[in-house]
């Protein structure tokens, strides 16, 4: 399982890349691996105002439906429309494919997120729980 060191992570298995007051949001390798073959992605509306903790997108695999939550509040600046036609890209390259780019209202919100080390530990614990 890959956990790039230049990203921050949530306990819902999203990753966030922070560039100034822009946050790039995606789902992790752990998430795509556990979902299995992804066949549908519902993206947020462009320009939508989203709140910390809100479900902003839906990722569906053959067997499961999963919400994608934003860990930061702000405005949706960009969405990755290529996922609408090729949802399987999220399986193939989860860290190359973002879900949305959000202009943050309060960049200090990212301080709540997990570091790569913390996230790796978190995943190990989850794996054990799942058996």
């Amino acid at each position: 399982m890959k956990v790039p060191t230049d990203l921050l992570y949530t306990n819902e298995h999203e990753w966030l890349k922070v560039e100034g007051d822009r946050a790039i949001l995606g789902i992790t390798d752990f998430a795509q691996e556990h979902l299995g073959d992804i066949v549908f992605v519902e993206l947020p509306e462009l320009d939508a105002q989203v709140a910390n903790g809100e479900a902003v997108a839906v990722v569906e695999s053959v067997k499961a439906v999963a919400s994608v939550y934003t860990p930061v509040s702000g405005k949706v600046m960009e969405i990755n429309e290529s996922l609408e036609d090729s949802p399987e890209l999220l399986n193939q390259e989860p860290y190359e494919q973002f879900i949305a780019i959000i202009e943050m209202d309060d960049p200090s919100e990212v301080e709540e997120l997990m570091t790569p080390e913390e996230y790796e530990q978190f995943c190990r614990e989850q794996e054990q729980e799942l058996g």
Partner: protein
Amino acid sequence: MSDSLKRTPLYEIHQRHGGKMIDFGGWELPVQYTGIIQEHHMVRGKAGIFDVSHMGEIEITGAKAQEFTRYLMTNDVTKLKDKQVQYTLMCYPDGGVVDDLLVYRFSEQHYLLVVNASNTDKDYQWILSHAPEGIQVANVSEQYAQIAVQGPKAQEILQKISDTDLSQIRFFWFEPQVKMAGIECMVSRTGYTGEDGFEIYLPAAQAAELWEKIIEAGGENIVPAGLGARDTLRFEAKLPLYGQELGPDITPLEAGLSTFVKLDSGDFIGRDALLKQRENQPMRTLVEFEMIGKGIPRSHYEVYKNGENIGYVTSGGHAPTLGKPMGLALVQSRWSEPGVDIEIMIRSKLIPARVTRGAFYKRPQK
């Protein structure tokens, strides 16, 4: 995983092949090995091997076994010849479904029923409670392992290790004694994928050995396939699943299975209720639909017409061979004609869909 989960004789094999194990109705079984979609395409294009040892087997024997089995089933088992298989349903007196199953006839005095894993105990008790003097009913599920080999290359692969000419086993027939890799098996040309293929019954102790021999014989042309692919394959071929298309509150006539309900050849449990339903036309009908708007319909999502809830999705999802989402729904019969526009409630939004017919997967004819 909980310790109370049951394991099939092939558990170790699944672990070794990297199967991702899940709790399936109390059984610890692989949902996938490499990926559901890849396994699905392999079965449509070449072949896949499935562990279906969790399926239940119930034996009915006795001088009047035929008469008794006929009385339990909606289909007419008296039409069967020795070594023939029939798909049928067992109903409650009100027409609801106890289970759907396969009946194997060894002789007029000996039938084997292959039932859904999660219904095995219920079915066994149900049959036992109706059995008259002189009929023996035995739950022999523990004795059998069951391996399904499905796909256009199934016969070619199995022939390499079989002592019997498999081309002589026709669709829905079986051979009670076939040696496969030297192991005594019962083999039927049946399956739950919409493809040609076989189901192999054998003693639990030899299941792992046969599995490896089949994989070896198949080489590049076969992959182990899990419950995930089994579900997408059966769904795409519009084969019903108990608990979704069928259940105690759904009759076979509502589910569009009247072909397997012989109302005019002898009495059976549920016949009166089904006769009445046939006369009055069922209020609900199982329909196929395709999505017009974007979204994936899933089991239990509600179906709407003109703002009114008219039913629910029984099975739905991405159909890998057709490459798009499809669904089956149980709706009010007046909205069951192909071409009728309906809406599916997906995450609190009504998404347009349309009733279709014949849009599901059919195996290309040779």
